[in-house]
């Protein structure tokens, strides 16, 4: 009964998550497991990440069939040409622990459409694509995409024709994946920079396809943070 008269929690109230996060970080530093500089170095590395290198990889491959072959054969090597070194670029010098060092580039064709999920957690190629979107991490997406892919793609606004094979890629072990969509009509004569702009994050996950003039993901509701981290 007394609970009824308690004031609603204020936005500036510190959460148990914030308290525990600080406690864990301080203890790890006090015990010499890592240094504050290590933590800062990783934060700075995170600031460099985003979907642009993956978009450029796709644009380059559209313009250069030899490079496209390299992308399909060895995604880690192909990443070097867009400025991403999966092994040595991070403070570790052995890649990021959570993303490993094995990128595969899944090339769509007129008769084949790829879409990526990680049913077991939310494995995602952070070094070349940045942090994963919230919807990609939901149990809902992970439950349904492997079994009802066409329905889920329809919810993202993507209708795949009957005569096209939909291939779901379940990123369950050490490989990370990006999708190389088909180059859309209406982009003849475009430069690499122009093409890069239409390869959005959602296109690289496989829930959207590039269109001339469309340079952003579909608008979706954004859940606000109480104390947002600004990248």
């Amino acid at each position: 009964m007394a609970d009824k008269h308690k004031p609603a929690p204020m936005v500036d109230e510190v959460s148990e998550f914030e308290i525990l996060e600080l406690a864990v970080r301080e203890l790890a530093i006090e015990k010499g497991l890592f240094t504050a500089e290590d933590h800062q170095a990783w934060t700075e590395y995170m600031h460099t990440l985003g979907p642009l290198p993956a978009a450029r990889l796709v644009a380059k491959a559209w313009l250069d069939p030899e490079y496209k072959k390299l992308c399909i054969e060895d995604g880690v090597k192909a990443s070097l040409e867009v400025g991403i070194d999966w092994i040595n670029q991070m403070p570790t010098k052995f890649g990021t622990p959570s993303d490993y060092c094995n990128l595969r580039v899944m090339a769509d064709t007129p008769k084949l459409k790829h879409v990526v999920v990680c049913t077991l957690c939310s494995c995602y190629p952070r070094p070349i694509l940045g942090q994963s979107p919230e919807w990609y991490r939901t149990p809902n997406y992970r439950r349904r995409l492997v079994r009802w892919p066409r329905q889920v793609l329809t919810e993202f606004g993507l209708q795949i024709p009957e005569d096209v094979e939909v291939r779901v890629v379940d990123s369950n072990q050490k490989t990370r994946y990006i999708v190389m969509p088909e180059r859309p009509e209406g982009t003849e004569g475009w430069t690499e920079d122009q093409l890069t702009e239409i390869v959005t994050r959602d296109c690289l996950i496989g829930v959207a396809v590039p269109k001339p003039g469309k340079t952003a993901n579909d608008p979706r509701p954004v859940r606000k943070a109480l104390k947002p981290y600004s990248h």
Partner: protein
Amino acid sequence: MSTPTRQRVLQHLDHVGLLQPAIHKETHAPSPDEITNDQYRAYTRTVHDVGGERDVPITWEEKEEEIWEHNTFVTCEVLAWRGVWNAEERRRRQNVDVGQTVYLGLPYYGRWLLTAALILVDKQYVTLSELHEKIDEVRKRYE
């Protein structure tokens, strides 16, 4: 492809999809004769393994990141950089060891954070008393 294994697999997926976080008013540790082998498998399953469970469409959302979420992710990566755990150990602890209720009941990075705290204790870098004292000390800073 209908074999006994496939039938069991599909039944299992239907079954565990019904498990949801719940706050039980009474505990009910059943006697062995009340637990079938199907129920045993459901209870002891690896809770991250959700592919193929039934669910209804939801609104796909983007989300802003809390400062503590960012810091938690970085702490977990740096712990692996310095050899406290490897990524597979982290995935096992935060996606399976936590159990179904925490798995579906806490935010994504909430699980990462609890797991980062527990690894320090489990590997004896920090005693649980030290962790408790530290949490208490940090909490008092904000009072």
